[in-house]
């Protein structure tokens, strides 16, 4: 098992180099001059432009720029962005916010999705099941930005249960409303996946055998239906965690959350290669580690999967 984890961690190196190279190249190849974009309509003195180009190595060829980026990365010096802010400080500011948002959304999906899914599955065809199925279908069908604005209006403005926008210094409670919006679509998928899985496992032969052994119904559900049903759900949740971190652009935009999505969007617009690549690098690490965690969890849930041989 230890050797498996080590091997998986070593795999991070090529994945990391590959993704950063790709992203760096895409930002490099973006049309338009980042320095010109920085100044907008004003025409700065040529000396200033030259100094900035020198500072950000914009006159160097692509490979040199990428090499310098890597060198800085390994000396833990991420440099400054075009507004002379240290990039490391920016990362330190935006990631905690998005991490809080993603964790809240994940809890909403995992806890409520599984809970509702299990109850719906066990009561297949009853009123609760049918209601939940219809509601989850609506949630899946309506686009996130519509849900976001509706929730903002209803819960934020009319009912005033939560602040309609988040702004700076966001805390756990401030993020509940955007977390609900962010988690809702996956909640619906998790619910449906759990429900289908529970229904399938309820009819499994070993569940009938467990009942024949004299086990009570709650024990049968807990030990024999629930654990087996979690296997596909865990896979989905893991793949989804990366999406929660990176894909929060729309939600963060609607609720004005000062997180990764917002920052990344601005950096892409400005053509700030170093910032974009720095954010993406962290996202890659999160994604790879989340997937490793899922694979380990998967092996724990299903002993037929073994990595160490």
């Amino acid at each position, binding site marked *: 098992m230890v050797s498996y984890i080590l091997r998986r961690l070593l795999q991070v190196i090529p994945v990391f180099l590959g993704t950063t190279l790709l992203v760096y190249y895409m930002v490099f190849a973006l049309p338009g001059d980042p320095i010109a974009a920085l100044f907008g309509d004003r025409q700065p003195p040529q000396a200033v432009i030259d100094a900035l180009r020198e500072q950000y190595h914009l006159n160097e060829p692509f490979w040199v720029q990428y090499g310098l980026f890597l060198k800085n990365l390994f000396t833990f010096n991420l440099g400054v962005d075009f507004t002379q802010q240290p990039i490391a400080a920016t990362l330190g500011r935006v990631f905690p916010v998005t991490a809080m948002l993603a964790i809240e959304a994940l809890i909403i999906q995992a806890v409520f999705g599984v809970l509702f899914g299990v109850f719906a599955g066990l009561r297949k065809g009853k009123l609760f099941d049918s209601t939940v199925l219809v509601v989850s279908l609506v949630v899946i069908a309506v686009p996130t930005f519509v849900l976001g604005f509706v929730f903002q209006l209803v819960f934020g403005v009319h009912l005033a249960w939560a602040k309609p926008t988040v702004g700076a210094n966001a805390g756990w409670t401030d993020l509940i409303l955007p977390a609900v919006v962010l988690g809702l679509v996956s909640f619906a998928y998790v619910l449906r996946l759990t429900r289908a899985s529970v229904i399938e496992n309820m009819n499994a032969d070993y569940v009938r055998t467990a009942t024949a*052994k004299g*086990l009570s119904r709650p024990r049968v559900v807990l030990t024999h239906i629930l654990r087996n049903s979690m296997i596909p759900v865990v896979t989905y949740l893991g793949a989804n965690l990366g999406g929660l971190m990176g894909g929060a652009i729309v939600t963060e935009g609607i609720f004005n959350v000062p997180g990764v999505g917002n920052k990344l969007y601005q950096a892409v617009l400005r053509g700030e290669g170093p910032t974009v690549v720095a954010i993406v690098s962290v996202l890659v690490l999160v994604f790879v580690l989340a997937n490793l965690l899922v694979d380990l969890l998967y092996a724990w*849930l299903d002993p037929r999967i073994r990595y160490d*041989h």
Partner: protein
Amino acid sequence: MTSDIRIEESGSHQAKPLLEIRDLAITFKTGSGEVKAVKNAHLTIMPGETVAIVGESGSGKSTTALAAIGLLPTNGRVSGGQILLDGEDIANASEKRMIELRGNTIGMVPQDPMSNLNPVWKIGYQVKETLRANGKPNGPDDVAKVLAQAGLPDAHRRAKQYPHEFSGGMRQRALIAIGLSCQPRLLIADEPTSALDVTVQRQILDHLDTMTTELGTSVLLITHDLGLAAERADKVVVMYQGNVVEAGPSLELLRNPQHPYTQRLVASAPSLASRRIQVAKEQGIETDELLAPADAKTVAASDELLKIEDLTKVFKLRSGFGRSTDFTAVDNVSFSVKRGTTTAIVGESGSGKSTVAQMVLNLLTPTSGRIVFDGVDTSSLGRKELFKFRRRVQPIFQDPYGSLDPMYNIFRTIEEPLRTHNVGNAASREKKVRELLDQVALPQSMMQRFPNELSGGQRQRVAIARALALDPEVIICDEAVSALDVLVQAQVLNLLAELQSNLGLTYLFITHDLAVVRQIADHVCVMEKGKLVETGATDDVFESPQMDYTKALLNAIPGASLMLPPEVA
């Protein structure tokens, strides 16, 4: 099955049956209304007695047994009659009462060892939770003791393993251990060994016998195999279409069946009527099941149509980090098949018999050795020649549910090989399909139907018609009748025998079932672990087997030791 202890026990409880089922009716709610799966079932089990319910699939035998332990599917209910356990009617008992009874009063050993253990829990845990739920001591030693009693060696270590680390036989032992762990008074064994090889089957049933005798447990045995039922049970109950049609002491019922269905069942049970169909025919024995056209058996031409020389197949098994170990699936096998005869390759799972078939079909490339078909080495065939070869050698596979395309209707299924090989035009192809349907005794009206609308036997007939479409010379049947009920199996075997004498076909029959071998084969090759251990004429091998392995296989046929019913013997 009778021992001194057992007689004493049943003697002292003479008047009180342990389980009595009276006029039981069970109804299922389906999309198209209510279906009566069991109409009228009745049986009595005395303490310590073993009673077998015999019937084909759909006869209601399993449903009756499941009702006795309160495990009917959610859409099923007992709609009439009583199930008396020690005089208490449990037909409509509360779930709470049933949970009390399950495990320590009524135990169950289910059918399929592959799907009845939860793959995510250790074997030991699955035993432990049974003991715990029934208030028994459940420490590691208690768990190991239960497993050891079911014949699992090294039980402490085995308890820490997961089901996928067990073989089929070991899993079934674990399930028997679970079923008997709380010393129930009644054990329901639903086809407990039908998924296992014959030799393993015998060991497991012997062990089950010993355990239930020691504990004085009554057994309700569900099986489709009359031979097995007669050998293992004191009494046999025959069910047909939801009704108990006949019941009585095993041997009596076997030798003197009264009901027409039981008579047919006895006549076609391959393990009992172990006579070659064609031999019986030549001797003029005519029963409904042995009906075949009167023309004499085609005298086999002496030429060798198929010759297998030193055939070997080695698979590479991955063992991680790019290393691999060799696994010899087929080891230096040689035999030949004469035109117009039937050769059976028989062996347990893992013996390499199917691998041989796949190499003969040219679906797998041999590691070494030659397959000579009609004088030509099949490995030397080019693309076009291979296409022609496929026309002359056709397969029929085991699973009639899986080998027909569900999206093709019957006409298209049978016509497909003709179209692939550009035979005739649309009109002549349709005529050919109609002829083929006649040959396999299916109505022509069936052409527009789809596989899911057909029964298992009908589908296998379609598979045979498809194989015959190109007028092949050799048909390779890979477990072609294993998935069928005994009566349907007998019909299909008859059809194959009839087609052989009419068309001069050569069969290579792959099977694990020695009883089927005896009915259909001229020659038999016995395989064990990739090696050919014995070969010869079927009658010789059956009457005087030379190798221990063959003897073990023959002894393991259920009911082999029983006397044949007089009218067949």
